[in-house]
């Protein structure tokens, strides 16, 4: 039966720590988005507060367990940029977490998922494209909703 030297065991522990460390670090740095009730229509209110025009609104319910309805907004700003924002409320923290997992499980190739998913209490807000000026302007207003 073979035995392992201290160096071998030390390097194994080093490997495990170094590989797991980034996960721990990032989980600590990234802000939590606890499940709680956010009232009203956060995207509509944020758009109104920032002077972004809502060109159309439609009711939608995502085909996901626990999804209880939301809206699809088409937004445009003064520069002519157009983004589509989908919102959806979930009936429980578990169903919302499952939807977040599903989104993260669908990257394109080995990259990142398409669009951005913002977690806002019981709502998920999905915006595409991910890096738009409209989302940049909406974000501070949406963050206020999280903290309020």
């Amino acid at each position, binding site marked *: 039966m073979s035995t*392992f*030297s201290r*160096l071998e*065991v030390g*390097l194994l522990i080093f*490997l*495990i720590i*170094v*590989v*797991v460390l*980034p*996960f721990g*670090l*990032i*989980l600590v*740095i*990234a*802000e*939590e*988005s*606890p*499940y709680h009730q956010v009232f009203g229509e956060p995207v509509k209110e944020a758009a109104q507060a920032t002077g972004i025009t809502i060109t159309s609104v439609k009711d*939608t319910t*995502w085909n996901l367990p*626990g*999804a209880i309805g939301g809206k*699809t907004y088409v937004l445009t700003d003064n520069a002519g*940029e157009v983004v589509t924002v*989908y919102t959806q409320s979930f009936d*429980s*923290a*578990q*169903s919302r*977490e499952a*939807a*977040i*997992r*599903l*989104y*993260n*499980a669908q*990257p*394109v*190739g080995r*990259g*990142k*998922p*398409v669009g*951005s998913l*913002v977690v806002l209490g019981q709502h998920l807000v*999905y915006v*595409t*494209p991910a*890096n738009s*000026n409209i*989302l*940049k302007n*909406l*974000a501070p207003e*949406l963050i206020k909703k999280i903290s309020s």
Partner: protein
Amino acid sequence: MSEEQTSQSNGIPSKKVLGLFALAMINVAAVLSIRNFPSMAVYGWSCIGWYILGAVMFLIPISLAGAELATGWPQGGGVYAWVKQAFGEKGGFTALFCEWSNNLVWFPTVLSFIASTLAFALTPALANSPFYMFSVMMIAFWGTTAIAYFGEEASTKFGNVGVILGSIIPAILIILLGVWWMGSGQAIVLPPLTLAAMVPTINVTTLPFFATIVLLFAGMEMAGFHALETRNPQKDFPRAMALSAVIIVVCTVLATLAIAMVIPANQLNLASGVMQAIEYFFKAAGVPWLVGPMAVLITLGGVVSLAAWLIGPAKGLGIVAEEGNMPPLFDRTNKYGAPVAVLVIQALIGSVISLLYVFLPSVNQAYWILSAMTVELLCIVYVLVFASVIKLRYSQPNTPRPFKIPGGMIGIWLVGGLGMFGTIFAFIVGLMPPSYFTTSGFVYVGSVLLGTFLLAVPPLVFLKFKKSSWCKPAGGVR
């Protein structure tokens, strides 16, 4: 020794079981994914332009570079063997380790996809249960590891059958339904095809997507890890690269267009899932009963993709350990020639990360940062591979290469340079935080770079502490 066997340095015979078809299927398993189709279908006709960009900036360069490197240096270890020839052990080990460690971040996402797709076939509400998710994820992960345990022959059989059933058949089915849709006079939701419609919009808002497209075909180097088990690497690698590239491109482009023609872009809400898009597609085509079987097949496709990425880099690390660059603890090979120690360590770490992924609440922002790290790690691998294929033309010009990138030095610089440009571009854009991020840009970039550094640096530590006793003498006994 029989012609069908070769002896590894540890004395355990490795069967030469892989031919052209099996090699091609390894690449197809690693790259072809139904998950990409709805994401790309959103872009309508311009998905053609995006695919062309992905092919020109990455797929063609990596296929050509992989073919030249695999035929010139068919020693096993894939990217490790290739980069080592150009930049020494540090470079080779770093490239391989980046490929292996980026998998650890990716595993939970593909496992989660497998579990939620299977739930869709059974009872979709199951996906809301973290216990269901974790159980299925672990069965898939350890089951795939168990298949890898039984060596190349078992993995190859599983991979060949799995990729046909789980990736190629679903893609062909989607294409055929698209053809039927057009032929039966149903309304096509796309506008008429024009050249302008195929041109993708490239601006600041689409840059992250552009960077994603560059790595859409990542994994084309996967067959290179299996060189030791390949019957005729010099002949089979280039042909396998070509065959897999054709299968991947044809299936991907046509299936994406089929979905884009049937489902309106506003219905392709990507946050609500690939299976939901597939369900919409099959219901529209009048075959809703096919949704359940498709979910099962796509689950299998996910498992086969997992297997391809799980086995390849682990085999590479096994070779690194066998060469004495890691302690003997990592160099445990079973009677089937599988690197059991690496497989078990990988499965244990992957299980811990999956546990965090499923049970820690609100990991959305955290996971975005982690997936950014996987992009950066993969970019490091590919930059090193492209740099190697260029450097080796200068440092080892006389090494026989049964396949050579055509065009002499201009050709090698064009192909290698294009690939390097694409991956460096993806690396830089990968550092851009999404606009909604509440974490400051400095913290975001710092986290991604620090995480990438931590996941790339262990090879340098291992080589620093390397002992001569870690190397096996001839005969394989330490």
